[in-house]
């Protein structure tokens, strides 16, 4: 049988395109879903050609990392080989008097600025990619996926590593700072661990799931004014057929942080590496600024693991305040005697106190849920760990997000004494590398503030954080808790009162610490 003329098929220039019949993409609802957290289009820094040219350059991140790389390799060598006097050893001085404080300033102002220039991840990534800046196709290492059960823990794992590192740091008095070599060993430990993870797992698995700082930077960084790399036009991204920003394109790698600019509603996982901007074939990615606290208040994608991380981090910083009181010394000594543990801090009271404080935070959330949850509140799905599909999580998770500014402020205040008392020592520490200074120099013994003023500054910082938290909590509770509560005003006032009470406790603890000191 011969086909009829009308059946004759015309040849096609792109037969693959003709055969591909993708199911329609879901486009509806994206505006409603992302509208509140989308940055102002006018705040795209890459609208400025010079910045765009700089960021598009493949050497951009390399040049951010390089100075820190030099500094931290110097830290390692000087810490091991230099003087044992901490204040005169560049390794100890730069790390504990300046660096930690600067990281906090960067995270509060920018977000993950440190991650963009981090020498630990940066060094490991150079080796993983087998290049300092070029776009390579083959990665070194096994490229494994991070085990799913661990990935499901989200931020809990890096909080765990942060607690571990903090305990090690306290145990060996690294950040005191004590013996400068200890600082070197700590940095070497982080570099080696990062390198091992980069060689075993794909992309920045270490930075996302393991790095001790990632939970702190991720949560506190959400106060920052940089929204990160985001889509300019979401429909373009939704209809994109290649997703080069995720998979990697001609000019850039796929997002090392597993973030898609089109669905990011906070700066939580934007490492500011600019790879998505470089790889986007449509030029649809911008680097946006945002109002402070936008990434605390606006996101609709809230996660229980992050809420628990906030509670644990809050517990840790409170523990660090309490352990400077006379009361804690009594408990710690008693525990050490009973448990035959030779050294401060005793892991039982360390973890126990942090756990109790975190549970207390969660308990407040549970109480608020118990008091205010509407009886007809129905949640759509059974909950897994990161889910909020329970009455408790429905209240606790947004409530914990509202505490971020106060937690961040408390951490910052905690770092201030070392900076204000000893930051000038970096100058003689640098000079000492060349054998040109001693601990008797005037600048070595110069402080930026007296102890009394330091406490004042700490209290002011906590007060500002409390005010920011109060504003954030008011917004969050109004948007997310009021509608599921029996009393809209009641739940808002209650959460506000908790914030103010928490701020007061934190501020008072600084005063008590000072008295104890």
């Amino acid at each position: 049988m011969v086909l009829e003329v009308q059946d004759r098929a015309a040849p096609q220039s792109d037969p693959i395109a003709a055969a591909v019949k993708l199911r329609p993409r879901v486009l509806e609802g994206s505006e409603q879903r992302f509208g509140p957290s989308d940055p102002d289009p006018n705040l795209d820094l890459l609208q400025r050609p010079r910045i765009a040219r700089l960021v598009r350059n493949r050497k951009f991140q390399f040049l951010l990392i390089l100075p820190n790389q030099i500094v931290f390799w110097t830290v390692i060598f000087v810490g091991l080989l230099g003087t044992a006097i901490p204040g005169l050893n560049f390794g100890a001085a730069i790390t504990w008097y300046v660096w930690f404080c600067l990281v906090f300033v960067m995270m509060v102002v920018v977000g993950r600025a440190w991650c963009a220039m981090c020498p630990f991840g940066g060094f490991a990534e150079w080796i993983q990619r087998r290049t300092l800046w070029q776009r390579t196709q083959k990665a070194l290492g096994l490229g494994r996926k991070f085990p799913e059960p661990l990935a499901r823990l989200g931020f809990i794992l890096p909080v765990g590593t942060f607690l571990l590192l903090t305990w090690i740091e306290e145990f060996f008095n690294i950040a005191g700072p004590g013996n400068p070599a200890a600082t070197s060993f700590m940095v070497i430990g982080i570099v080696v661990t990062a390198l091992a993870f980069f060689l075993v797992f794909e992309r920045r698995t270490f930075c996302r799931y393991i790095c001790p700082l990632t939970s702190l930077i991720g949560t506190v960084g959400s106060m920052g004014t940089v929204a990160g790399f985001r889509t300019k036009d979401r429909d373009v991204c939704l209809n994109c057929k290649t997703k080069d920003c995720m998979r990697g394109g001609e000019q850039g790698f796929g997002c090392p942080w597993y973030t898609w600019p089109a669905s990011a509603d906070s700066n939580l996982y934007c490492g500011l590496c600019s790879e998505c901007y470089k790889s986007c074939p449509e030029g649809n990615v911008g680097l946006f600024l945002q109002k402070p606290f936008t990434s605390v208040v606006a996101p609709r994608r809230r996660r229980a693991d992050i809420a628990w991380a906030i509670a644990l981090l809050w517990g840790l910083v409170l523990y660090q305040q309490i352990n400077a009181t006379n009361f804690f010394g009594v408990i710690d000594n008693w525990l050490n005697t009973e448990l035959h543990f030779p050294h401060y801090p005793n892991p039982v009271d360390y973890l126990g106190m942090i756990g109790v404080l975190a549970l207390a935070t969660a308990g407040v959330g549970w109480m608020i849920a118990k008091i205010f949850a509407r009886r007809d509140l129905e949640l759509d799905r059974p909950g897994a760990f990161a889910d909020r599909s329970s009455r408790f999580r429905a209240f606790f998770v947004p409530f914990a997000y509202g505490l971020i500014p106060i937690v961040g402020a408390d951490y910052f205040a905690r770092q201030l004494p070392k900076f204000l008392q000893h930051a000038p020592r970096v100058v003689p520490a640098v000079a000492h590398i060349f054998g040109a200074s001693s601990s008797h120099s005037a600048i070595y013994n110069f402080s930026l503030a007296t102890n009394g003023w330091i406490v004042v500054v700490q209290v002011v910082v906590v007060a500002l954080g409390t005010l920011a938290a109060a504003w954030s909590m008011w917004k969050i509770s109004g948007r997310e808790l009021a509608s599921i509560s029996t009393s809209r005003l009641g739940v808002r006032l209650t959460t506000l009162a908790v914030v103010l009470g928490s701020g007061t406790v934190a501020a008072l603890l600084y005063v008590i610490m000072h008295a104890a000191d």
Partner: protein
Amino acid sequence: MTISDTMSAATMTHPGVRILADRCAGCEECVVRCPTQALTMDTEHWVALANSDLCVGCRQCVRTCPFSAVVVEGPALVAPRIDPEPIHPARLRNDVSEIRAGFDGWVEALSEAERCLQCPDPTCVRGCPAHNDIPGFINKIRQGDLTGAQTILRRTSVLTDICSRVCNHAAQCEGACSWSLAGDVPVAIGRLERFVADTQPVPPPFVPSTDTNLSVGIIGAGPGGAGAAWELVEAGASVTVYEKDPTPGGLCHWGIPDFTLPEAVSSRPWRQLVDAGVDLRSGVEVSPGDLEELLGRHDAVIVALGASQPMRLSVPGSDLGGVIDATTFLQGAKAALGDGGDPEGWCSALGVESQDVRHGRFGSRVLVLGAGNTAMDVARSARRLGLDATCVDWLDERFALTRPDELDEARQEGVEVRFLRTLVALHAKDDRVGRAELALTTQDRADRRPNVLAKGHEFLDVDLVVMAMGYRRDPAFTDALPDTPVRRVVVGVPDRRWTASGILAAPASSYADGNPVGTLALGREVGLESAALPVTDRLWVIGDALIGPATVVEAMAQGRRAALAVLDARPARPGSTTGESADRPRRVLVCYESLGGKTAKAAEALADRLSVDGDEVRVLPIRKVGRTELAASDLVVVGTWVEGLLVAGVRPAKAMRAWLAGLPRLGGKQFALFCTYALAPKGTIPAMRRALEAKGAVVVAQAAFGPRELADTAAAFGPAAFGQELAHRARAGASSGASVGYRTVPR
């Protein structure tokens, strides 16, 4: 609101799919590709939602998720594949009846068609060198509409009956089937295609009543020539085919025995083409020196020479009597085993003795060098001639180049295949070959050459040696066809649409015999796209002449692609008043490499100006410009920013240099060049010009724009004025390579 996880729902008998909610970015790549709608979107949380009840375990989602956020566990839910057993004749000698069976009617065909998932992004289509719409034609089979199925296949193939018999489906469409990529058994796509072709014969070319007056000469009447001739004759072109053999068909005719490809099937395309008006001139051998004359006679010439030169192994004794090549053997065997042939007489002419294996003794031993498909054809033909056949190949059997089913069939027919051995010498006995000396080899990886061991040589008494290691293109055409053969290798980042489909994500499945089907398919795409571009003015090359020895389906697909390119370009021979199309606008492609946006802006301004004069203009960054885009343009304008430090190291941007270096042969295509600079362009334009001219392009204009010409306040914005100049030249018909614009650009 928060996001949600789902727990594993996989059982021993049912797959389960889960979303790793922490990492799911809600990009919907899995959702739009899931064939069973087991994945949907949760728009409130903007993550994918998984429904394990609908999951069949094909793992498309796992392969396509950019962030590895989908987990599928458990077995695949797919029915067993229907694979008819080969029909081996009871008595092999002199029997060339077809071995491979098709489906035994509709019941089997429908059952197999039901195994197809109808994937939304069908990787099998990418795996098929011709890009047949496989889900489309299988769906038509399901509906009982074979006419519709044939219509769909005809869009991309004119050799469905041949390809369905001779293609190595395991390394192509079936290897790229979702089931195969998931580690299971793929749909029998080849047999379904054959079912369509056998039940609904391929219709002849439709010859339009209007004539385009386009005259095209095709050199070679193989599958590539057939594909090209078919498209051209259906478009109303006048087609003349020059074939050196007396019978058309090329390798399909003389190289593939009847028991694999029956004569009635292999001759079908050319019967239909000649009936449709193709001027077939058999017995006409074209030499490289004849190309100029043919280009004077035709508006375009398509070279489809094939690879007809058999490879020979040069070892001591290879010039002895009784050592022949595969072409000689296969052509002779075809004639001897065909109607009116004399198998015993031909064997005697070769100096070997034919015996009937049923009589308990074997005939003379034929040593076949190689164990690829050609070698299998030689050995199996030898068995039908009553000869004892032994194949030796220096590859490991794991990396054998033959179809796995063909190897099994050959062994069932009594062919002895010895891998990891290579011939080192042939020794004489009574003035002709009598003994072969073989060395042992080792091979640990497919991409590594085997090592030849010095010790442990084997000796084999032989009566005839056939060198069947493959073919190569006639080396006389090397100079006439510059930059060929093209390597089928993707340099740099592969097409992201291919990556998105997931075909590159899966490791080689066992069904595909360990072949990385995605990488192979992407490499074939380089050949296919290259076929669209002429190697010199009005001269296209396709098939084995373009890419070296390859497959029937690739040659056919490239033939079609080249024919479409000829029809699109409408070239005209000197002095001809026909051919050149005046009824469509000039198609201009403006492509650029921009860093800060200035070059992109200049490209847009230039394009805007060209559009004013009626040109059809596309503006693309160079990373989006490939062979297909170049082939579909009459004029290509290329712009770059200038890299370098002030005046040191000034040259085209690195990405532009890489792009220029990776361009294929451009065969007289017209280019215009521009660059944007801050201080001085220095040698930027000349460097680009040299790179393009080395590829055969013709540079018709060039310009360099400094800050003054690019300023928004400039009285005559440089790029726009350059566009006006290009438009003016088009109207005037000028194509000189003089510089235009705003700064003198040295040649």
